[in-house]
């Protein structure tokens, strides 16, 4: 996603990313980033909390106006309501990120890409 944002910026479209994987986005380098320190899957706020979602999207709109230089990151003030224990367990062997069926889908997706490359 960061690579797409960079291409849009290079071609005159201002962008803002709203996302959770701060180290990955900043390692790539993007113009504007709203860092949402939430579990992967909820970058725009907790499910069914429309007030929080509005607040987060508002931060992204504000950042479009206020950022004066690339690599501008703002961190939302909201906290994940169920605490932060998810940070200890995400991507650990005790808690497989994908189920066995999902791993098969992931492998199938990689194979589809290899097939696409061969056809092109």
């Amino acid at each position, binding site marked *: *996603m*960061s*690579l*797409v944002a*960079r*291409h*849009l*910026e*290079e*071609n*005159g*479209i*201002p*962008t*803002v*990313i709203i996302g959770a*994987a*701060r*180290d990955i986005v900043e*390692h*790539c*380098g*993007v*113009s504007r980033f709203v860092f949402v320190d*939430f579990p*992967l*899957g*909820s*970058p*725009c*706020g*907790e*499910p*069914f*909390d*429309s007030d929080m*979602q509005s607040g987060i*999207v508002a931060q992204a*709109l504000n950042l*479009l*106006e206020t*950022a004066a*230089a*690339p*690599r501008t990151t703002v961190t939302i003030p909201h906290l*994940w309501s*169920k605490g*932060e224990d*998810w*940070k200890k367990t*995400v*991507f*650990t*062997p005790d808690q497989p*990120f994908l189920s066995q069926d999902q791993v098969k*889908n992931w492998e199938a*997706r*990689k194979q*589809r*890409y290899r097939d696409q490359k061969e056809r092109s």
Partner: protein
Amino acid sequence: MEHVLYMQRIRDYYLSQGYEKPYVWAHYEDVPFTPLKKPLSESTVTLFSTSDVSVRREDDDALSAAETTVGEVYSLPWDTPLESLYSRQESFDRYATSLDDIDSYLPLTRMREFAEAGRIGAVTRNFHNINRGYSQKLMIETSAPAALAKCREEGADVAVLTPV
């Protein structure tokens, strides 16, 4: 608690799962930057996500090629009723959250509310999905130009991107 250092965590995780070749994340020193060209209240905003959202369909209706081709960018009308949309994305923290509320990762309603309030000028006719691939070359050579073409087709002045 400090934020998760995903690059290290993911590297360690996949090594533990028997994958030997660690993923190398994209990295650049220079970062392009385009300032807003006009006030947001006069700007048309578009939305890209990697949530793999599709319209619900009968079991025997296959997904379109655009929805399943890795690297492709596909579009759906912004005014599609939310209850008919669902996410096919499986790469998220399924222990901590869900993808049951579209607006928590693809803020269609929230953005429309900001348009109705005059905070932004308008939203584009469609929103867009990027079929994420793990090849940076594919993202740079295929997905990124396709996303730019979507912006131009729909007169988007600004893009909001929400990676899941």
